[in-house]
Protein backbone atom coordinates (compact mmCIF):
# COMPACT_ATOMS: atom_id res chain seq x y z
CA UNK A 1 0.00 0.00 0.00
CA UNK A 2 2.95 2.26 0.58
CA UNK A 3 3.60 2.11 -3.11
CA UNK A 4 0.34 3.83 -3.92
CA UNK A 5 0.71 7.41 -2.76
CA UNK A 6 -2.18 9.68 -3.44
CA UNK A 7 -0.30 12.73 -4.41
CA UNK A 8 -2.72 14.33 -6.78
CA UNK A 9 -0.73 17.18 -8.14
CA UNK A 10 2.11 14.96 -9.15
CA UNK A 11 -0.30 12.44 -10.58
CA UNK A 12 -1.98 15.02 -12.74
CA UNK A 13 1.31 16.35 -14.00
CA UNK A 14 2.71 12.95 -14.86
CA UNK A 15 -0.52 12.09 -16.64
CA UNK A 16 -0.07 15.07 -18.90
CA UNK A 17 3.58 14.22 -19.39
CA UNK A 18 2.45 10.86 -20.62
CA UNK A 19 0.03 12.15 -23.15
CA UNK A 20 2.79 14.23 -24.53
CA UNK A 21 5.04 11.22 -24.30
CA UNK A 22 3.42 9.47 -27.21
CA UNK A 23 5.70 11.53 -29.40
CA UNK A 24 9.35 10.72 -29.11
CA UNK A 25 10.46 13.12 -26.40
CA UNK A 26 13.58 11.73 -25.08
CA UNK A 27 16.46 12.91 -23.16
CA UNK A 28 19.29 10.47 -22.88
CA UNK A 29 20.28 8.87 -26.10
CA UNK A 30 20.31 11.69 -28.52
CA UNK A 31 23.96 12.43 -28.09
CA UNK A 32 25.53 10.94 -31.18
CA UNK A 33 23.48 10.20 -34.25
CA UNK A 34 26.38 8.27 -35.68
CA UNK A 35 25.86 5.98 -38.60
CA UNK A 36 26.85 2.79 -36.77
CA UNK A 37 24.56 3.58 -33.87
CA UNK A 38 21.68 4.37 -36.16
CA UNK A 39 22.17 1.27 -38.25
CA UNK A 40 22.36 -1.03 -35.26
CA UNK A 41 19.29 0.63 -33.76
CA UNK A 42 17.33 -0.13 -36.92
CA UNK A 43 18.61 -3.70 -37.05
CA UNK A 44 17.35 -4.30 -33.51
CA UNK A 45 14.10 -2.47 -34.27
CA UNK A 46 13.56 -4.69 -37.29
CA UNK A 47 14.15 -7.77 -35.18
CA UNK A 48 11.64 -6.63 -32.54
CA UNK A 49 9.02 -5.85 -35.16
CA UNK A 50 9.61 -9.23 -36.81
CA UNK A 51 9.13 -11.11 -33.54
CA UNK A 52 5.84 -9.32 -32.96
CA UNK A 53 4.46 -9.38 -36.49
CA UNK A 54 5.71 -12.56 -38.17
CA UNK A 55 3.56 -14.88 -36.01
CA UNK A 56 0.49 -12.88 -37.03
CA UNK A 57 1.41 -12.90 -40.70
CA UNK A 58 2.03 -16.61 -40.49
CA UNK A 59 -1.39 -17.02 -38.92
CA UNK A 60 -2.90 -15.37 -41.98
CA UNK A 61 -0.98 -17.62 -44.37
CA UNK A 62 -2.21 -20.68 -42.48
CA UNK A 63 -5.71 -19.27 -42.69
CA UNK A 64 -5.29 -19.14 -46.46
CA UNK A 65 -3.82 -22.60 -46.90
CA UNK A 66 -5.93 -25.62 -47.70
CA UNK A 67 -6.62 -27.95 -44.81
CA UNK A 68 -4.12 -30.52 -45.96
CA UNK A 69 -1.41 -28.12 -47.11
CA UNK A 70 -1.00 -27.12 -43.49
CA UNK A 71 0.53 -30.51 -42.78
CA UNK A 72 2.99 -30.54 -45.72
CA UNK A 73 6.46 -31.63 -44.72
CA UNK A 74 8.66 -29.69 -45.03
CA UNK A 75 6.23 -26.88 -44.25
CA UNK A 76 5.95 -24.09 -46.80
CA UNK A 77 5.94 -20.57 -45.50
CA UNK A 78 3.50 -19.27 -48.10
CA UNK A 79 0.34 -20.89 -49.37
CA UNK A 80 0.35 -22.23 -52.95
CA UNK A 81 -3.21 -21.34 -53.61
CA UNK A 82 -5.41 -19.07 -51.59
CA UNK A 83 -8.26 -20.90 -49.94
CA UNK A 84 -10.52 -17.99 -49.18
CA UNK A 85 -13.35 -20.34 -48.31
CA UNK A 86 -11.61 -20.98 -44.96
CA UNK A 87 -12.89 -17.61 -43.87
CA UNK A 88 -16.44 -18.85 -44.41
CA UNK A 89 -16.21 -22.50 -43.47
CA UNK A 90 -13.99 -21.96 -40.45
CA UNK A 91 -16.40 -19.65 -38.64
CA UNK A 92 -19.26 -22.03 -39.44
CA UNK A 93 -17.62 -24.79 -37.39
CA UNK A 94 -18.11 -22.90 -34.12
CA UNK A 95 -21.29 -20.99 -35.13
CA UNK A 96 -19.26 -17.81 -35.23
CA UNK A 97 -22.13 -15.31 -35.72
CA UNK A 98 -23.91 -16.63 -32.64
CA UNK A 99 -20.76 -16.44 -30.49
CA UNK A 100 -19.90 -13.03 -31.90
CA UNK A 101 -23.31 -11.79 -30.83
CA UNK A 102 -22.83 -13.33 -27.36
CA UNK A 103 -19.40 -11.73 -26.98
CA UNK A 104 -20.72 -8.39 -28.18
CA UNK A 105 -23.60 -8.31 -25.72
CA UNK A 106 -21.51 -9.49 -22.76
CA UNK A 107 -18.70 -7.08 -23.56
CA UNK A 108 -20.93 -4.07 -24.22
CA UNK A 109 -22.81 -4.52 -20.96
CA UNK A 110 -19.70 -5.07 -18.88
CA UNK A 111 -18.06 -2.01 -20.39
CA UNK A 112 -21.07 0.17 -19.61
CA UNK A 113 -21.44 -1.23 -16.11
CA UNK A 114 -17.76 -1.12 -15.25
CA UNK A 115 -17.23 2.44 -16.41
CA UNK A 116 -20.44 3.77 -14.90
CA UNK A 117 -20.00 2.40 -11.39
CA UNK A 118 -16.30 3.22 -11.27
CA UNK A 119 -16.95 6.81 -12.31
CA UNK A 120 -19.68 7.16 -9.72
CA UNK A 121 -17.58 5.69 -6.93
CA UNK A 122 -14.56 7.72 -8.02
CA UNK A 123 -16.67 10.89 -7.91
CA UNK A 124 -17.86 10.17 -4.39
CA UNK A 125 -14.40 9.23 -3.15
CA UNK A 126 -12.71 12.25 -4.66
CA UNK A 127 -15.19 15.08 -4.37
CA UNK A 128 -17.70 14.37 -1.62
CA UNK A 129 -17.05 14.36 2.12
CA UNK A 130 -18.63 11.48 3.98
CA UNK A 131 -17.72 9.28 6.90
CA UNK A 132 -15.75 6.25 5.79
CA UNK A 133 -14.38 7.85 2.66
CA UNK A 134 -10.77 6.92 3.39
CA UNK A 135 -11.66 3.44 4.59
CA UNK A 136 -13.56 2.60 1.44
CA UNK A 137 -10.81 3.96 -0.72
CA UNK A 138 -8.25 1.73 0.95
CA UNK A 139 -10.59 -1.25 0.83
CA UNK A 140 -11.07 -0.80 -2.92
CA UNK A 141 -7.36 -0.33 -3.57
CA UNK A 142 -6.52 -3.23 -1.31
CA UNK A 143 -8.91 -5.49 -3.17
CA UNK A 144 -6.82 -4.94 -6.31
CA UNK A 145 -4.25 -7.20 -4.74
CA UNK A 146 -6.75 -9.93 -3.95
CA UNK A 147 -6.22 -12.77 -6.42
CA UNK A 148 -9.33 -13.36 -8.51
CA UNK A 149 -9.12 -17.07 -7.91
CA UNK A 150 -10.15 -16.63 -4.27
CA UNK A 151 -13.64 -15.73 -5.43
CA UNK A 152 -13.95 -18.43 -8.04
CA UNK A 153 -15.31 -21.32 -5.98
CA UNK A 154 -17.57 -19.45 -3.51
CA UNK A 155 -19.02 -17.33 -6.31
CA UNK A 156 -19.54 -20.38 -8.48
CA UNK A 157 -21.60 -21.92 -5.70
CA UNK A 158 -23.41 -18.65 -5.04
CA UNK A 159 -24.37 -18.27 -8.71
CA UNK A 160 -25.49 -21.87 -8.82
CA UNK A 161 -27.73 -21.44 -5.79
CA UNK A 162 -29.47 -18.36 -7.20
CA UNK A 163 -29.90 -19.83 -10.66
CA UNK A 164 -27.24 -17.75 -12.40
CA UNK A 165 -25.11 -20.71 -13.47
CA UNK A 166 -25.08 -21.06 -17.24
CA UNK A 167 -26.35 -17.52 -17.72
CA UNK A 168 -24.45 -14.36 -18.65
CA UNK A 169 -25.23 -12.68 -15.35
CA UNK A 170 -21.99 -13.73 -13.58
CA UNK A 171 -20.06 -12.11 -16.42
CA UNK A 172 -22.06 -8.88 -16.44
CA UNK A 173 -23.49 -8.09 -13.01
CA UNK A 174 -20.12 -7.82 -11.19
CA UNK A 175 -19.12 -5.08 -13.63
CA UNK A 176 -22.18 -3.06 -12.58
CA UNK A 177 -21.08 -3.45 -8.98
CA UNK A 178 -17.62 -1.98 -9.22
CA UNK A 179 -16.05 -5.26 -10.28
CA UNK A 180 -12.75 -3.66 -11.28
CA UNK A 181 -11.17 -1.72 -8.40
CA UNK A 182 -8.43 -0.43 -10.71
CA UNK A 183 -11.11 1.62 -12.49
CA UNK A 184 -12.32 3.10 -9.21
CA UNK A 185 -8.74 4.05 -8.41
CA UNK A 186 -8.17 5.62 -11.84
CA UNK A 187 -11.48 7.50 -11.69
CA UNK A 188 -10.75 8.88 -8.25
CA UNK A 189 -7.28 10.04 -9.24
CA UNK A 190 -8.68 11.80 -12.26
CA UNK A 191 -11.49 13.48 -10.32
CA UNK A 192 -9.05 14.75 -7.72
CA UNK A 193 -7.21 16.74 -10.36
CA UNK A 194 -10.26 18.81 -11.31
CA UNK A 195 -10.47 22.19 -9.56
CA UNK A 196 -13.16 22.42 -6.90
CA UNK A 197 -14.20 25.88 -7.99
CA UNK A 198 -16.04 24.19 -10.84
CA UNK A 199 -18.42 22.33 -8.53
CA UNK A 200 -18.86 25.42 -6.39
CA UNK A 201 -19.90 27.42 -9.43
CA UNK A 202 -22.32 24.70 -10.51
CA UNK A 203 -23.77 24.51 -7.01
CA UNK A 204 -24.37 28.25 -6.96
CA UNK A 205 -26.24 27.82 -10.21
CA UNK A 206 -28.44 25.36 -8.33
CA UNK A 207 -27.15 22.10 -9.76
CA UNK A 208 -27.46 18.94 -7.62
CA UNK A 209 -24.82 16.22 -7.44
CA UNK A 210 -26.37 14.14 -10.19
CA UNK A 211 -26.46 17.18 -12.43
CA UNK A 212 -22.86 18.11 -11.64
CA UNK A 213 -21.75 14.54 -12.23
CA UNK A 214 -23.51 14.12 -15.57
CA UNK A 215 -23.17 17.52 -17.19
CA UNK A 216 -19.99 18.87 -15.66
CA UNK A 217 -17.80 15.99 -14.57
CA UNK A 218 -18.40 13.44 -17.32
CA UNK A 219 -17.36 15.80 -20.12
CA UNK A 220 -14.30 16.90 -18.15
CA UNK A 221 -13.17 13.36 -17.45
CA UNK A 222 -13.56 12.04 -20.97
CA UNK A 223 -9.98 10.72 -21.29
CA UNK A 224 -10.39 8.80 -18.04
CA UNK A 225 -13.53 6.97 -18.99
CA UNK A 226 -12.46 6.31 -22.53
CA UNK A 227 -9.33 4.67 -21.14
CA UNK A 228 -11.44 2.64 -18.75
CA UNK A 229 -13.88 1.66 -21.45
CA UNK A 230 -11.02 0.36 -23.58
CA UNK A 231 -9.49 -1.60 -20.73
CA UNK A 232 -12.93 -2.99 -19.83
CA UNK A 233 -13.57 -3.95 -23.44
CA UNK A 234 -10.27 -5.74 -23.64
CA UNK A 235 -10.75 -7.54 -20.33
CA UNK A 236 -14.23 -8.76 -21.20
CA UNK A 237 -13.56 -9.67 -24.83
CA UNK A 238 -10.44 -11.60 -23.87
CA UNK A 239 -11.75 -13.22 -20.68
CA UNK A 240 -11.46 -16.98 -20.82
CA UNK A 241 -11.51 -18.43 -17.29
CA UNK A 242 -14.80 -16.90 -16.14
CA UNK A 243 -16.97 -17.91 -19.09
CA UNK A 244 -15.23 -21.29 -19.07
CA UNK A 245 -16.33 -21.85 -15.48
CA UNK A 246 -19.76 -20.20 -15.50
CA UNK A 247 -21.15 -21.20 -18.91
CA UNK A 248 -22.01 -24.74 -19.80
CA UNK A 249 -24.15 -24.55 -22.94
CA UNK A 250 -22.12 -23.91 -26.08
CA UNK A 251 -24.90 -21.68 -27.42
CA UNK A 252 -24.18 -19.16 -24.67
CA UNK A 253 -20.40 -19.14 -24.99
CA UNK A 254 -18.50 -16.02 -25.91
CA UNK A 255 -15.89 -16.26 -28.64
CA UNK A 256 -13.00 -16.93 -26.24
CA UNK A 257 -14.42 -20.26 -25.08
CA UNK A 258 -15.67 -21.10 -28.57
CA UNK A 259 -12.25 -20.49 -30.09
CA UNK A 260 -10.58 -22.62 -27.42
CA UNK A 261 -13.04 -25.45 -28.06
CA UNK A 262 -12.07 -25.33 -31.73
CA UNK A 263 -8.72 -26.94 -31.17
CA UNK A 264 -9.21 -28.94 -28.01
CA UNK A 265 -8.62 -32.52 -29.04
CA UNK A 266 -11.90 -34.39 -29.31
CA UNK A 267 -11.17 -38.10 -29.32
CA UNK A 268 -7.97 -37.84 -31.29
CA UNK A 269 -9.43 -35.66 -34.03
CA UNK A 270 -6.79 -33.38 -35.51
CA UNK A 271 -7.84 -29.77 -35.30
CA UNK A 272 -8.42 -27.96 -38.57
CA UNK A 273 -5.70 -25.41 -38.22
CA UNK A 274 -6.48 -23.51 -41.39
CA UNK A 275 -10.11 -23.13 -40.33
CA UNK A 276 -8.97 -22.11 -36.88
CA UNK A 277 -6.47 -19.49 -38.05
CA UNK A 278 -8.96 -17.93 -40.47
CA UNK A 279 -11.50 -17.64 -37.66
CA UNK A 280 -8.82 -16.46 -35.26
CA UNK A 281 -8.17 -13.46 -37.47
CA UNK A 282 -11.84 -12.53 -37.30
CA UNK A 283 -11.80 -12.96 -33.53
CA UNK A 284 -8.79 -10.65 -33.25
CA UNK A 285 -10.22 -7.95 -35.48
CA UNK A 286 -12.37 -6.01 -32.97
CA UNK A 287 -9.55 -5.55 -30.42
CA UNK A 288 -7.17 -4.74 -33.27
CA UNK A 289 -9.47 -2.05 -34.61
CA UNK A 290 -10.04 -0.59 -31.16
CA UNK A 291 -6.29 -0.61 -30.53
CA UNK A 292 -5.36 1.23 -33.67
CA UNK A 293 -8.26 3.66 -33.37
CA UNK A 294 -7.60 4.55 -29.75
CA UNK A 295 -3.92 3.79 -29.35
CA UNK A 296 -3.02 6.70 -27.15
CA UNK A 297 -5.64 5.73 -24.58
CA UNK A 298 -4.15 2.26 -24.27
CA UNK A 299 -0.73 3.67 -23.63
CA UNK A 300 -2.15 6.30 -21.31
CA UNK A 301 -4.23 3.88 -19.28
CA UNK A 302 -1.46 1.48 -18.48
CA UNK A 303 1.13 4.19 -18.31
CA UNK A 304 -0.89 6.05 -15.74
CA UNK A 305 -0.81 2.97 -13.57
CA UNK A 306 2.96 3.31 -13.68
CA UNK A 307 3.12 7.04 -13.23
CA UNK A 308 0.58 7.34 -10.44
CA UNK A 309 2.85 5.26 -8.33
CA UNK A 310 5.90 7.22 -9.29
CA UNK A 311 7.28 8.85 -6.21
Amino acid sequence: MTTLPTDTVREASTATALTAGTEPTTPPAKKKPRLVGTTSWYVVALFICAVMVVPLLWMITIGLKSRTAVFDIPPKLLPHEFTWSNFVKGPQVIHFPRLLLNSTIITALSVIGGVMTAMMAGYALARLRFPGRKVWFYLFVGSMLLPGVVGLIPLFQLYKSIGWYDTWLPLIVPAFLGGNPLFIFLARQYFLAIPYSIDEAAKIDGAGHLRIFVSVMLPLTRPAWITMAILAFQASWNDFLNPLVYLYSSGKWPLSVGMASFVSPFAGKTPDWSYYMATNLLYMLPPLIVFFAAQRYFIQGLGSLGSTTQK
Partner: protein
Amino acid sequence: MSRNAGSDVKAAYLFIAPAVIGFLVFVGYPLIRSFYLALTKYNGLTDPVFVGLGNFRRLFSTDPAFWPALRATGYLVLLYVPLSLVIGLALAMFCNQRFAGVRVVRTLAYLPVVLPAVATITLWKFILDPQVGLLNTILDRLGLPTSLWLQSPKMAMPSVVMVMLWGVGGTMIIFLAALQAVPTELYEAARVDGAGPWATFFRITLPMISPIMLLQVILQTTAALQTFNQPKILTNGGPGFSTNVLMLSIYNNGFPSLGRIPQLGYASAQVWVLFIIIIAVIALTAKFSSLWTYSDNTPD
Protein backbone atom coordinates in the same frame (compact mmCIF):
# COMPACT_ATOMS: atom_id res chain seq x y z
CA MET B 1 -15.62 22.88 2.68
CA SER B 2 -19.16 22.31 1.62
CA ARG B 3 -22.10 24.21 3.02
CA ASN B 4 -24.65 21.45 2.67
CA ALA B 5 -22.70 18.57 4.17
CA GLY B 6 -25.85 16.53 4.74
CA SER B 7 -26.72 16.31 1.08
CA ASP B 8 -23.09 15.51 0.33
CA VAL B 9 -23.22 12.47 2.56
CA LYS B 10 -26.49 11.23 1.11
CA ALA B 11 -25.28 11.73 -2.45
CA ALA B 12 -21.96 10.08 -1.65
CA TYR B 13 -23.65 6.95 -0.35
CA LEU B 14 -25.83 6.77 -3.44
CA PHE B 15 -22.88 7.21 -5.77
CA ILE B 16 -20.73 4.68 -4.00
CA ALA B 17 -23.49 2.17 -3.24
CA PRO B 18 -22.97 -0.11 -6.27
CA ALA B 19 -19.25 -0.41 -5.60
CA VAL B 20 -19.80 -1.04 -1.90
CA ILE B 21 -22.40 -3.74 -2.56
CA GLY B 22 -20.02 -5.24 -5.11
CA PHE B 23 -17.19 -5.19 -2.62
CA LEU B 24 -19.25 -6.98 0.01
CA VAL B 25 -20.63 -9.59 -2.40
CA PHE B 26 -17.63 -10.21 -4.66
CA VAL B 27 -14.73 -9.58 -2.29
CA GLY B 28 -15.89 -9.83 1.31
CA TYR B 29 -18.21 -12.80 1.03
CA PRO B 30 -15.95 -15.01 -1.14
CA LEU B 31 -12.96 -14.27 1.06
CA ILE B 32 -14.72 -15.55 4.18
CA ARG B 33 -16.56 -18.32 2.42
CA SER B 34 -13.50 -19.70 0.67
CA PHE B 35 -11.59 -19.72 3.95
CA TYR B 36 -14.40 -21.75 5.47
CA LEU B 37 -14.60 -24.09 2.48
CA ALA B 38 -10.85 -24.69 2.71
CA LEU B 39 -11.55 -26.37 6.04
CA THR B 40 -14.26 -28.63 4.66
CA LYS B 41 -14.88 -31.56 2.40
CA TYR B 42 -17.33 -30.31 -0.19
CA ASN B 43 -18.51 -31.71 -3.51
CA GLY B 44 -20.85 -28.85 -4.37
CA LEU B 45 -23.98 -30.98 -4.08
CA THR B 46 -24.27 -32.03 -0.46
CA ASP B 47 -23.46 -29.75 2.47
CA PRO B 48 -19.81 -29.10 3.28
CA VAL B 49 -18.40 -31.29 6.05
CA PHE B 50 -15.94 -29.62 8.42
CA VAL B 51 -12.59 -31.41 8.42
CA GLY B 52 -10.34 -28.84 10.08
CA LEU B 53 -6.87 -28.80 8.60
CA GLY B 54 -7.44 -32.14 6.87
CA ASN B 55 -7.21 -30.66 3.39
CA PHE B 56 -3.90 -29.01 4.15
CA ARG B 57 -2.54 -32.19 5.67
CA ARG B 58 -3.53 -34.06 2.53
CA LEU B 59 -1.95 -31.38 0.35
CA PHE B 60 1.40 -31.37 2.02
CA SER B 61 1.79 -35.03 2.88
CA THR B 62 -0.23 -37.38 0.69
CA ASP B 63 -1.20 -35.64 -2.57
CA PRO B 64 1.38 -36.73 -5.15
CA ALA B 65 0.40 -33.86 -7.47
CA PHE B 66 0.73 -30.95 -5.06
CA TRP B 67 4.50 -30.60 -4.74
CA PRO B 68 4.99 -30.90 -8.50
CA ALA B 69 2.34 -28.19 -8.92
CA LEU B 70 4.14 -25.96 -6.45
CA ARG B 71 7.46 -26.66 -8.12
CA ALA B 72 6.04 -25.95 -11.58
CA THR B 73 4.57 -22.68 -10.33
CA GLY B 74 7.86 -21.67 -8.74
CA TYR B 75 9.78 -22.57 -11.88
CA LEU B 76 7.42 -20.51 -14.01
CA VAL B 77 7.69 -17.49 -11.71
CA LEU B 78 11.49 -17.67 -11.46
CA LEU B 79 11.82 -18.01 -15.20
CA TYR B 80 9.19 -15.51 -16.26
CA VAL B 81 9.45 -12.60 -13.82
CA PRO B 82 13.19 -11.79 -14.20
CA LEU B 83 13.06 -12.24 -17.97
CA SER B 84 9.95 -10.11 -18.26
CA LEU B 85 11.50 -7.33 -16.18
CA VAL B 86 14.85 -7.36 -17.98
CA ILE B 87 13.43 -7.61 -21.47
CA GLY B 88 10.63 -5.17 -20.64
CA LEU B 89 13.07 -2.58 -19.34
CA ALA B 90 15.50 -3.11 -22.21
CA LEU B 91 12.64 -2.73 -24.67
CA ALA B 92 11.42 0.41 -22.91
CA MET B 93 14.88 1.96 -23.03
CA PHE B 94 15.21 0.99 -26.65
CA CYS B 95 11.85 2.59 -27.43
CA ASN B 96 12.68 5.68 -25.38
CA GLN B 97 15.11 6.96 -28.00
CA ARG B 98 14.81 9.53 -30.67
CA PHE B 99 14.69 7.71 -33.97
CA ALA B 100 12.29 8.01 -36.84
CA GLY B 101 9.90 5.09 -36.59
CA VAL B 102 10.27 4.54 -32.87
CA ARG B 103 6.51 4.84 -32.45
CA VAL B 104 6.00 2.00 -34.89
CA VAL B 105 8.29 -0.24 -32.84
CA ARG B 106 6.51 0.80 -29.64
CA THR B 107 3.09 0.10 -31.12
CA LEU B 108 4.08 -3.27 -32.54
CA ALA B 109 5.78 -4.31 -29.31
CA TYR B 110 2.56 -3.57 -27.47
CA LEU B 111 0.33 -5.19 -30.09
CA PRO B 112 0.35 -8.76 -28.70
CA VAL B 113 -0.91 -7.44 -25.36
CA VAL B 114 -4.20 -6.24 -26.80
CA LEU B 115 -4.95 -9.44 -28.68
CA PRO B 116 -7.20 -12.01 -26.99
CA ALA B 117 -5.22 -14.47 -24.89
CA VAL B 118 -6.98 -17.48 -26.37
CA ALA B 119 -6.19 -16.30 -29.90
CA THR B 120 -2.50 -15.67 -29.36
CA ILE B 121 -1.88 -18.69 -27.15
CA THR B 122 -3.51 -21.04 -29.63
CA LEU B 123 -1.54 -19.44 -32.43
CA TRP B 124 1.65 -20.11 -30.48
CA LYS B 125 0.59 -23.66 -29.84
CA PHE B 126 0.74 -24.19 -33.56
CA ILE B 127 3.92 -22.14 -34.01
CA LEU B 128 5.57 -24.50 -31.52
CA ASP B 129 4.32 -27.63 -33.29
CA PRO B 130 7.45 -29.76 -33.77
CA GLN B 131 6.58 -31.01 -37.28
CA VAL B 132 4.80 -28.19 -39.08
CA GLY B 133 5.26 -25.25 -36.70
CA LEU B 134 6.83 -21.98 -37.76
CA LEU B 135 9.59 -21.95 -35.15
CA ASN B 136 11.09 -25.31 -36.05
CA THR B 137 10.69 -24.49 -39.74
CA ILE B 138 12.73 -21.33 -39.32
CA LEU B 139 15.33 -22.98 -37.07
CA ASP B 140 15.65 -25.83 -39.52
CA ARG B 141 16.20 -23.51 -42.49
CA LEU B 142 18.83 -21.60 -40.55
CA GLY B 143 20.56 -24.88 -39.76
CA LEU B 144 19.90 -24.49 -36.04
CA PRO B 145 18.82 -27.32 -33.73
CA THR B 146 15.07 -27.78 -33.43
CA SER B 147 13.12 -28.91 -30.38
CA LEU B 148 9.95 -30.70 -29.37
CA TRP B 149 9.01 -27.56 -27.39
CA LEU B 150 5.69 -28.17 -25.62
CA GLN B 151 5.90 -31.92 -26.08
CA SER B 152 9.19 -32.28 -24.27
CA PRO B 153 9.02 -32.42 -20.46
CA LYS B 154 12.20 -30.41 -20.26
CA MET B 155 11.30 -27.69 -22.76
CA ALA B 156 7.57 -27.44 -21.99
CA MET B 157 7.83 -24.85 -19.23
CA PRO B 158 10.41 -22.68 -21.00
CA SER B 159 8.12 -22.78 -24.04
CA VAL B 160 5.15 -21.68 -21.94
CA VAL B 161 7.26 -18.83 -20.58
CA MET B 162 8.36 -17.90 -24.09
CA VAL B 163 4.72 -17.58 -25.11
CA MET B 164 4.06 -15.42 -22.06
CA LEU B 165 7.03 -13.23 -22.94
CA TRP B 166 5.48 -12.43 -26.29
CA GLY B 167 3.27 -10.13 -24.21
CA VAL B 168 6.27 -8.33 -22.68
CA GLY B 169 4.95 -5.10 -24.22
CA GLY B 170 2.74 -4.74 -21.16
CA THR B 171 5.82 -4.54 -18.94
CA MET B 172 7.52 -2.26 -21.43
CA ILE B 173 4.76 0.33 -21.45
CA ILE B 174 4.86 0.85 -17.70
CA PHE B 175 8.65 1.16 -17.70
CA LEU B 176 8.37 3.59 -20.59
CA ALA B 177 6.11 5.85 -18.53
CA ALA B 178 8.60 5.64 -15.68
CA LEU B 179 11.56 6.48 -17.93
CA GLN B 180 9.76 9.49 -19.34
CA ALA B 181 9.20 10.82 -15.84
CA VAL B 182 12.93 10.92 -15.07
CA PRO B 183 14.02 14.58 -15.10
CA THR B 184 16.19 15.39 -18.12
CA GLU B 185 18.53 17.55 -16.03
CA LEU B 186 19.85 14.47 -14.27
CA TYR B 187 21.08 13.05 -17.56
CA GLU B 188 22.58 16.36 -18.58
CA ALA B 189 24.39 16.64 -15.26
CA ALA B 190 25.69 13.11 -15.68
CA ARG B 191 26.98 13.91 -19.14
CA VAL B 192 28.71 17.02 -17.90
CA ASP B 193 30.37 14.91 -15.22
CA GLY B 194 31.55 12.54 -17.90
CA ALA B 195 29.50 9.51 -16.87
CA GLY B 196 29.43 6.67 -19.39
CA PRO B 197 26.26 4.84 -20.43
CA TRP B 198 26.65 2.12 -17.79
CA ALA B 199 27.26 4.58 -14.96
CA THR B 200 24.28 6.61 -16.14
CA PHE B 201 22.12 3.52 -16.17
CA PHE B 202 23.11 2.25 -12.74
CA ARG B 203 23.44 5.61 -11.00
CA ILE B 204 20.51 7.49 -12.52
CA THR B 205 18.03 5.46 -14.54
CA LEU B 206 17.76 2.47 -12.25
CA PRO B 207 17.45 4.41 -8.96
CA MET B 208 14.95 6.81 -10.48
CA ILE B 209 12.65 4.07 -11.74
CA SER B 210 13.12 1.82 -8.70
CA PRO B 211 9.64 2.57 -7.26
CA ILE B 212 8.14 1.38 -10.53
CA MET B 213 10.47 -1.59 -10.50
CA LEU B 214 9.07 -2.47 -7.08
CA LEU B 215 5.53 -2.19 -8.35
CA GLN B 216 6.42 -4.31 -11.37
CA VAL B 217 8.05 -7.01 -9.26
CA ILE B 218 4.89 -7.26 -7.16
CA LEU B 219 2.46 -7.12 -10.07
CA GLN B 220 4.39 -9.53 -12.26
CA THR B 221 5.01 -12.04 -9.50
CA THR B 222 1.41 -12.10 -8.32
CA ALA B 223 0.19 -12.37 -11.91
CA ALA B 224 2.71 -15.11 -12.72
CA LEU B 225 1.68 -17.08 -9.63
CA GLN B 226 -1.86 -17.07 -11.04
CA THR B 227 -0.97 -18.07 -14.59
CA PHE B 228 -3.77 -20.15 -16.03
CA ASN B 229 -4.51 -19.51 -19.71
CA GLN B 230 -1.13 -20.45 -21.15
CA PRO B 231 -0.63 -23.83 -19.47
CA LYS B 232 -4.34 -24.63 -19.82
CA ILE B 233 -4.38 -24.07 -23.57
CA LEU B 234 -0.81 -24.97 -24.51
CA THR B 235 -0.21 -28.13 -22.53
CA ASN B 236 -3.08 -28.71 -20.10
CA GLY B 237 -0.40 -29.39 -17.51
CA GLY B 238 1.62 -31.91 -19.49
CA PRO B 239 3.77 -33.62 -20.45
CA GLY B 240 3.49 -35.45 -17.14
CA PHE B 241 3.14 -32.79 -14.47
CA SER B 242 5.81 -30.54 -15.98
CA THR B 243 3.53 -27.53 -16.54
CA ASN B 244 0.74 -28.40 -14.10
CA VAL B 245 0.85 -25.11 -12.21
CA LEU B 246 -1.16 -24.47 -9.05
CA MET B 247 -3.97 -22.62 -10.85
CA LEU B 248 -4.46 -25.52 -13.22
CA SER B 249 -4.49 -27.96 -10.34
CA ILE B 250 -7.09 -25.81 -8.53
CA TYR B 251 -9.22 -25.67 -11.67
CA ASN B 252 -9.02 -29.41 -12.24
CA ASN B 253 -9.90 -30.23 -8.64
CA GLY B 254 -12.74 -27.72 -8.41
CA PHE B 255 -14.16 -28.06 -11.91
CA PRO B 256 -13.18 -31.51 -13.15
CA SER B 257 -14.23 -32.97 -16.46
CA LEU B 258 -17.58 -34.71 -16.54
CA GLY B 259 -17.93 -37.83 -14.48
CA ARG B 260 -15.48 -36.85 -11.75
CA ILE B 261 -16.57 -35.43 -8.41
CA PRO B 262 -15.64 -31.79 -7.80
CA GLN B 263 -13.47 -31.34 -4.71
CA LEU B 264 -14.36 -27.78 -3.92
CA GLY B 265 -13.12 -27.85 -0.33
CA TYR B 266 -9.80 -29.29 -1.37
CA ALA B 267 -9.46 -26.80 -4.22
CA SER B 268 -10.24 -23.98 -1.76
CA ALA B 269 -7.40 -25.15 0.44
CA GLN B 270 -5.12 -24.92 -2.59
CA VAL B 271 -6.48 -21.45 -3.29
CA TRP B 272 -5.49 -20.42 0.21
CA VAL B 273 -2.01 -21.83 -0.17
CA LEU B 274 -1.68 -19.73 -3.32
CA PHE B 275 -3.19 -16.72 -1.59
CA ILE B 276 -0.78 -16.99 1.34
CA ILE B 277 2.17 -17.29 -1.04
CA ILE B 278 0.99 -14.14 -2.82
CA ILE B 279 0.61 -12.22 0.45
CA ALA B 280 4.05 -13.41 1.55
CA VAL B 281 5.62 -12.30 -1.73
CA ILE B 282 4.03 -8.86 -1.51
CA ALA B 283 4.95 -8.44 2.15
CA LEU B 284 8.56 -9.55 1.65
CA THR B 285 9.04 -7.45 -1.46
CA ALA B 286 7.63 -4.38 0.27
CA LYS B 287 9.61 -5.04 3.45
CA PHE B 288 12.94 -5.27 1.71
CA SER B 289 12.15 -2.61 -0.84
CA SER B 290 13.92 0.08 1.17
CA LEU B 291 17.17 -1.76 0.49
CA TRP B 292 17.01 -1.20 -3.23
CA THR B 293 14.42 1.42 -4.04
CA TYR B 294 15.37 5.03 -4.15
CA SER B 295 13.19 7.69 -2.55
CA ASP B 296 13.93 11.36 -2.62
CA ASN B 297 13.83 13.30 0.62
CA THR B 298 11.33 15.92 -0.37
CA PRO B 299 8.66 16.02 2.31
CA ASP B 300 5.17 15.16 1.14
